């Protein structure tokens, strides 16, 4: 009857999104007066989850690296074993990949991009974003078992006191017809999906040779770097950095847009970010209407100064 949560780890370490969904699961469990069980894959020490409200951990070690079908199948079996009526996943690429397969396996209704704890558990109603962040949609899940995908950075981390008991779980897993040929991943950089701060550059930066200051600003802030669509279309930056409606969605705590005018497609993709800062020479750029803080000025003068100010700030607050 407990609430089941899929907590993703990478190289044995939990992602921030995993701790966030654990916190969310605890809130749902409180509403339903039950406990939280987490399912993890190949995680050595999972005890950290206890600090975020998890009571029990099922660690799967008979599955290899991520495979959506196999992981969905394992989570389904865990849900059945625990009698879980609610299964919670994050909004990571992997979670969004497996969630629909899991929902079909469990005959469960699935609501994605959920931003708050359920407004009611009977009927089971959640608030999710729709129309690419231009609206919220209150959605009722009418099936017996429910799958909820929680938006990144929407619920936050909620620590609680407690400890989680871990046990091994060995589901019966079928083979998959999908095999990984190669993975191309920058391990030394913060990914846009995991980042709390994103620094993004647009065409106002005039050329790829000027990205040094964007990377430096990001490095000072521990942020991910991103770019607008024209910049990726021009080949100045890789497509993987393109954020916006047809690029990656951003839901960071802080989004700093430099030399980006703020086309509606761009704003749609980044609007879920909590605080938006814009730096642009053009005071009439539409981004100023969507931003919380703005600097009307030349990025080539403002950004280097801002880097210095932030370095001083970091030195004082280290």
């Amino acid at each position, binding site marked *: 009857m407990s609430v089941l949560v899929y907590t993703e780890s990478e190289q044995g370490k939990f992602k921030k999104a995993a701790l966030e969904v654990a916190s969310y699961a605890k809130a749902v469990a409180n509403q339903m007066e039950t406990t939280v069980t987490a399912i993890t894959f190949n995680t050595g020490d999972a005890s950290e989850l206890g600090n975020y409200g998890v009571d029990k951990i099922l660690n799967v070690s008979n599955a290899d690296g991520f495979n959506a079908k196999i992981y969905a199948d394992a989570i389904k079996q865990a849900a059945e074993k625990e009698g879980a009526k609610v299964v919670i996943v994050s909004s990571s690429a992997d979670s969004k*990949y497996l969630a*629909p397969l899991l929902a079909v396996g469990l005959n469960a209704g699935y609501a994605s991009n959920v931003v708050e704890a359920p407004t009611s558990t009977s009927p089971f109603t959640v608030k999710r974003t729709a129309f690419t962040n231009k609206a919220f949609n209150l959605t*009722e899940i*009418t099936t017996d078992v429910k799958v909820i995908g929680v938006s990144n950075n929407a619920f936050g981390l909620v620590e609680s006191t407690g400890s989680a008991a871990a046990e091994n779980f060995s589901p019966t897993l079928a083979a998959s017809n999908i095999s990984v040929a190669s993975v*191309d991943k920058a391990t030394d950089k913060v990914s846009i999906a995991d980042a709390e701060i994103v620094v993004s550059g647009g065409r106002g930066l005039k050329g790829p040779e000027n990205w040094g200051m964007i990377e430096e600003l990001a490095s000072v802030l521990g942020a991910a770097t991103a770019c607008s669509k024209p910049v990726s279309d021009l080949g100045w930056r890789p497509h993987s950095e393109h954020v916006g*409606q047809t690029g990656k969605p951003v839901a960071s705590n802080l989004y700093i847009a430099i030399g980006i005018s703020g086309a509606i497609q761009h704003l749609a993709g980044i609007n879920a970010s909590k605080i938006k800062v814009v730096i642009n020479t053009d005071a009439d750029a539409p981004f100023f209407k*969507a931003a919380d803080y703005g600097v009307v*000025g030349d990025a080539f003068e403002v950004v280097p100064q801002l880097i210095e100010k932030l370095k001083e700030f970091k030195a004082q607050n280290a």
Partner: protein
Amino acid sequence: MKILVCISHVPDTTSKINFAEGDTKFDPNGVQFVINPNDEFGLTRAMWFKEKQGASVDVANVGGPETEPTLRKALAIGADSAIRVNTAATDGFAVAKQLAKVVQDGGYDLVIAGRESIDYNGGMVPGMLAGLIDANFVNNCIHLEIDGDNATASREIDGGKETVNTSLPLVIGGQKGLVEESDLRIPNMRGIMMARKKPLMIIEPIDANAETASVKFEKPAPKGAVTLVSPDNLDELVNLLHNEAKVI
């Protein structure tokens, strides 16, 4: 190879979103509808398979008669025929179930659907469809090659990309990267004329229960005005981000 591209009929990004009937329904008045951008990348990749590898390409939509201009546009871009399942698209599962029937009846080898529609952003139809018909599934797909029954596909992962080997039958959750923005096609006059003569089949829905129900819509609270900071006073910006916004 028989390809089906699933087409969502969605409001253009620049449309103002309004709700009616006590904020329980989307208000289509004054809204321009388009092919869902994520579907359009998939359709263009499908056209490449048609032209280079002799594939046939059909498009399908679950929706009422109002979606037909969007299907005609897909035909004008080059699809061979269109199918409209004549029922309202109530939720992702119900749509996936209708499409599963279309795929099974049509014997499609490859199904390409956008990773999500830009209206409800559910991101579930391709995966649920794959689950229902037990096909292989690659989501957030940014590159796809087909050779006989074998497929090589890349998907976006957090912080990079992953390339996988798989096989048909295959369902793809597509997005930008399948083709570039500059490869997208605008229907030309000849395409539009030909599209009028291409078949658009209307099929009646099967029984498919929805698993979720939209209760109400809300718009985000209106945003306050931007706080402008002088470029000569960036200490103030650092101060605001630290003490007011509490994000650094």
